């Protein structure tokens, strides 16, 4: 596999992460200096399931670097509908673009696709697996608000199927971070993520409610409890209500607590929280552009230099 595919947060070292975050900070400081840097380059957007933020931020990032994007469009209007394999689709599309971004509903899709292409491939979410570029923008936002060492991060919601959680938990092991996971018993972290956390020696605790840990947190990362995961609607309602935060809940939190969410939210963060000093999730979403500019700049720069 090429060294410059980005498939999983587990492949990112602290130095890798800091390099992207530093470059994103440079972009943030002087966006105009990066315009036109990759004119002539084309990024292929291959989204096999719906996406708003990820798709548009990659599109925007490439255009702000002076490049262009080519988009396979909706699955319903592509050859995938005719039964083409993902492997074949990706082998065709690599001929159209200098780098590819893949979002797919199956876990492992990006890892497999990477075996079939020779242009840099970025995993933009594979089922309940990984979402490493979301993690980079999460880390960027955390660094801006709390730093990345000697902090306590609470991650609450659907930890089992939440790919952003899996990537973030893994990446945080590169830093001096205490991780507090809060979820219903049925949506605890999957075995593979727990295995990696244990193996890395990370400081990790698991809880079924937020009350006991909220006051200690520097970051609270909330994810949606996914209704579709519950066979029984009543079970969902019972659980979902316990993992919703409102402004009053945050009274016990540190003044400096930063609340993040990969979005879209449904009702797990009350709208009134938006007006508190804690809410940083829209800023977090905006950070997707400089982060993806930094990542694409790095990938395309490497490619231009022929470092394959």
């Amino acid at each position, binding site marked *: 596999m090429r060294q410059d595919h980005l498939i999983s947060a587990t492949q990112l070292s602290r130095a890798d992460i800091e390099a992207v975050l530093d470059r994103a900070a440079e972009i943030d400081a002087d966006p105009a200096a990066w315009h036109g840097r990759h004119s002539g380059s084309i990024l292929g957007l291959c989204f096999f399931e719906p996406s708003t933020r990820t798709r548009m931020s990659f599109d925007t990032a490439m255009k702000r670097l002076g490049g262009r994007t080519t988009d396979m469009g909706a699955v319903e209007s592509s050859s995938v509908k005719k039964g083409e394999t993902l492997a074949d689709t990706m082998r065709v599309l690599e001929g159209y673009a200098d780098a590819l971004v893949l979002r797919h509903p199956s*876990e492992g899709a990006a890892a497999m696709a990477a075996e079939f292409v020779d242009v840099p491939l970025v995993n933009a979410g594979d089922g309940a697996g990984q979402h490493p570029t979301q993690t980079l923008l999460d880390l960027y936002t955390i660094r801006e608000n709390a730093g990345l060492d000697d902090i306590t991060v609470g991650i609450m919601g659907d930890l089992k199927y939440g790919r952003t959680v899996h990537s973030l938990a893994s990446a945080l092991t590169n830093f001096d971070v205490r991780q507090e996971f809060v979820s219903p018993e049925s949506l605890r972290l999957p075995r593979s993520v727990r295995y990696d956390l244990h193996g890395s020696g990370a400081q990790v605790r698991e809880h079924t409610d937020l009350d006991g840990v909220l006051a200690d947190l520097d970051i609270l990362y909330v994810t949606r409890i996914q209704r579709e995961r519950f066979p029984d609607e009543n079970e969902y309602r019972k659980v979902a209500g316990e993992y919703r935060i409102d402004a009053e809940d945050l009274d016990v939190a540190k003044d400096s607590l930063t609340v993040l969410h990969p979005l879209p939210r449904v009702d797990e963060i009350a709208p009134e929280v938006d007006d508190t000093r804690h809410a940083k999730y829209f800023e977090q979403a905006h950070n997707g552009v400089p982060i993806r500019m930094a990542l694409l700049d790095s990938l395309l720069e490497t490619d231009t230099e022929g470092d394959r």
Partner: protein
Amino acid sequence: MTDTDRELRVSKIRNGTVIDHLTAGQALNVLALLGIDGSGGETVSVGMNVPSDTLATKDIVKVEDRELSQSEVDVLAVISPEATINIIRDYEVIEKQRIERPESVEGVLSCPNRNCITTGDEPIRTRFAVLEEGLRCHYCDEIVRESEITSHLTVT
């Protein structure tokens, strides 16, 4: 009674493979691993819970006219690490195949994660990294504990 005498409890084979010192209870899983269910007409002898000097009890499988692929040996090493493999020609042991815990196992297990890309029609073989106490899908990261491995054998 020697080990050789005990092996005679299940008939000797002329040509093929003797898989000995299997962890007791694994014989049927080994047959599943080899894709043997009797329908192929193979001559197979199976001993289960046979007394053993080195293991309290063991299983033993003798398969006529069949040798194991490396992938099959790799899985065997995971589910029954004490197993020994003897290749038989004209009733004589002509080779003792070494069995070592591999770094990965390819093509003989399906991933239990129904949403793993390997469960579709893609042109790839399953691949699992071998951990201390199980296997991990190279593609989706799903971990399969050793006790669960035989449930996911891909019978060929």
